[in-house]
């Protein structure tokens, strides 16, 4: 199993493909990107995730050359490209709404970049045929963008961006315009394509499922800064801040204060949920005002209190009443009003067909979870 500690880029090893070094960008009085530093390795599938307005698109546009950073460096293979205009960068971009040329056929759209590169006619034709086969658009070469479906347009945009064999492919919300079913299959195709070509992809998305599925590493951005850079698993299981914890996935946050510390465990006295046992975080600050975070699927429910603690240590038990049941198909989400006043969201897999909705509203239950599944974060 993969370690949950962050992998820090190792100093001294060969330069990364892309090094973003303290890059900042302001628009008037608004700071869009605020001193972001990031290394991207060759062959990596990296996702920039964040709410709208967090600066992820501005950062991507600076990588493509459509915006010039006010400060910092963008090193591509060691050379600073921050001031290089877009048409001279060995980087290509797949645009959010594809930005296909409406007056050109599929073939001419794909060949556009090759023509500008001054490639010979025969070579262009061969390369276009290769790309058309790669993204499975055979037979549609003469169509115009408006005669294509959304999924086909997405593939034309991808082929066009890949045509010049970029060292780095930037994808701006590549799947946002597709419907749910198509998005899932396209995600798999995109991932397979990236592995097959061994290219470096940076994708910007506001959709965390998409980032989780696609990326080797995710950079979560908030208000122009990188809040955390980690693998999807680290991000979900070991968020470094309350903001990241709440932004990625669903989580229960219970505020409290540290009242005791014993044998690698913290005792956190909360207002709404009594005293909780939690692990000592790696980088515990001096603050005693903290919050305990627990993912809904890490909590168990039972109609009578669990007799024993399977882990041997103290487990957290909370008495409460089911207030609300949300049936989602594969799982149900129970809202439990605790005796102490707090509410917990608990997600249970509907593993058996006939036992679905095992708990009903109004039923008294015990919610319990292992201290190891809690995360202690600064408020």
């Amino acid at each position, binding site marked *: 199993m993969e370690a949950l500690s962050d992998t820090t880029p190792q100093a001294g090893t060969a330069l990364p493909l892309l090094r973003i070094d303290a890059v900042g960008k302001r628009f008037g009085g608004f700071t869009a990107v605020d001193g972001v530093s990031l290394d991207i390795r060759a062959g990596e599938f990296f996702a920039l995730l964040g709410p709208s307005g967090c600066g992820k698109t501005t950062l991507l546009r600076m990588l493509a050359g459509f915006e010039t950073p006010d400060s910092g460096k963008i090193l591509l293979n060691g050379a600073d490209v921050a001031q290089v205009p877009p048409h001279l960068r060995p980087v290509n971009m797949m645009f959010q709404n594809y930005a296909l040329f409406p007056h050109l056929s599929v073939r001419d759209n794909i060949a*556009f970049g090759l023509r500008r590169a001054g490639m010979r006619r025969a070579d262009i034709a061969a390369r276009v045929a290769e790309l058309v086969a790669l993204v499975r658009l055979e037979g549609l070469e003469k169509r115009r963008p408006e005669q294509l479906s959304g999924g086909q347009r997405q593939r034309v945009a991808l082929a066009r961006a890949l045509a*010049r064999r970029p060292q780095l492919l930037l994808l701006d919300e590549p799947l946002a315009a597709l419907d749910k079913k198509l998005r899932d299959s396209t995600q798999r195709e995109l991932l397979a394509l990236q592995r097959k070509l061994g290219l470096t992809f940076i994708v910007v998305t506001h959709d965390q499922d998409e980032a989780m599925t696609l990326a080797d590493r995710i950079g979560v951005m908030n208000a122009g800064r990188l809040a955390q850079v980690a693998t999807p698993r680290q991000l979900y299981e070991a968020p470094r801040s309350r903001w990241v914890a709440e932004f990625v996935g669903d989580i229960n946050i219970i505020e409290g204060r540290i009242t005791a510390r014993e044998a690698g465990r913290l005792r956190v006295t909360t207002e709404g949920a009594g005293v909780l046992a939690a692990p000592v975080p790696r980088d515990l600050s001096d603050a005693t005002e903290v919050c305990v975070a627990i993912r809904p699927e890490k909590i168990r429910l039972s109609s009578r209190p669990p007799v024993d603690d399977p882990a041997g240590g103290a487990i957290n038990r909370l008495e409460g009443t089911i207030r609300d049941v949300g049936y989602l198909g594969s799982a149900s989400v129970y809202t439990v009003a605790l005796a102490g006043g707090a509410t917990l969201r608990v997600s249970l897999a509907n593993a058996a067909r006939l036992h679905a909705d095992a708990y009903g509203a109004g039923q008294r239950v015990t919610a319990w979870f292992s201290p190891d599944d809690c995360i202690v974060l600064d408020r």
Partner: protein
Amino acid sequence: MSGRNLFTRPARLAAIAPYGWMVLFFLVPFGFVLKLSLSQVANAQPPYLPVFDLGAGWQALVAAAGSLSFDNFRLLLSDDLYLLSGLRSLTVATTTTALLLLIGYPIAYAMSRLPRRWQPLAMMLVIVPFWTSFLIRVYAWINILQHDGLLNQVLLALRIVSAPVVWLSTDTAMYIGMVYSYLPFMILPLYATLSKLDPALCEAAADLGSSPLQSFWRVTLPLSLPGVGAGALLCFIPLVGEFVIPDLLAGSDSPMIGQTLWLEFFTNRDWPVAAATAVMLLVILLLPLVIYDRFQRRQMVRP
């Protein structure tokens, strides 16, 4: 189902309305002009012979149809005054349209690139001349272009010329007046097309290795062709029939067809020949319309 009918009936009426308008205010009057063009001039009030009388019954109508006279059209073809003025109209309109495109495109392009909040102001500045009467603006040009007018004063003061240049009653003066008067009609459709262009398309072109000039040539220009077509048509058609500007600013040696028409109607009082000239003008003007329509259709359905 009845609900649906209630909805579609007014909608259909709305679709028919423009056609009704065209029939009532274009086709019917044109019918009068056509009828008039087949008549003969006469010393009467109105100054022409009736071709046929709709009140005279069907028999009389058929008889009249058999004895229709195309003499007026024969005259148009035999006297080269009409052909020459038609040809001059086409030349002048084509040249002016080309000049308008050369001047109007950069202006419209620059407007579309302004920050969004400045664009309405730029648009206002283009439209503002319309607040003054067209005729007054042409007279103002006479003032500027005359012997001791503003233009000559400036040129003399800057020592670009040593003696006043004759501007008035030349083709140059006419072209200045025409370009000035029609420029908004060229800029507005061009601006409408250019401002709707997705800026991401130019970014995509740049991303794929196009220099700014190549981006313009390969993406912006082809995609603005509908605006070029609309602007050119909007200017070309009234320019062909233009009367006031050549009459006031150009010399009198080679009239445009609008001037010839005016001459026939007011000076010669030959309404039938004037009407025939008007019909000829319309036929000439149908040609660019048909070409534009073809072009638009091809744009829409090209595989």
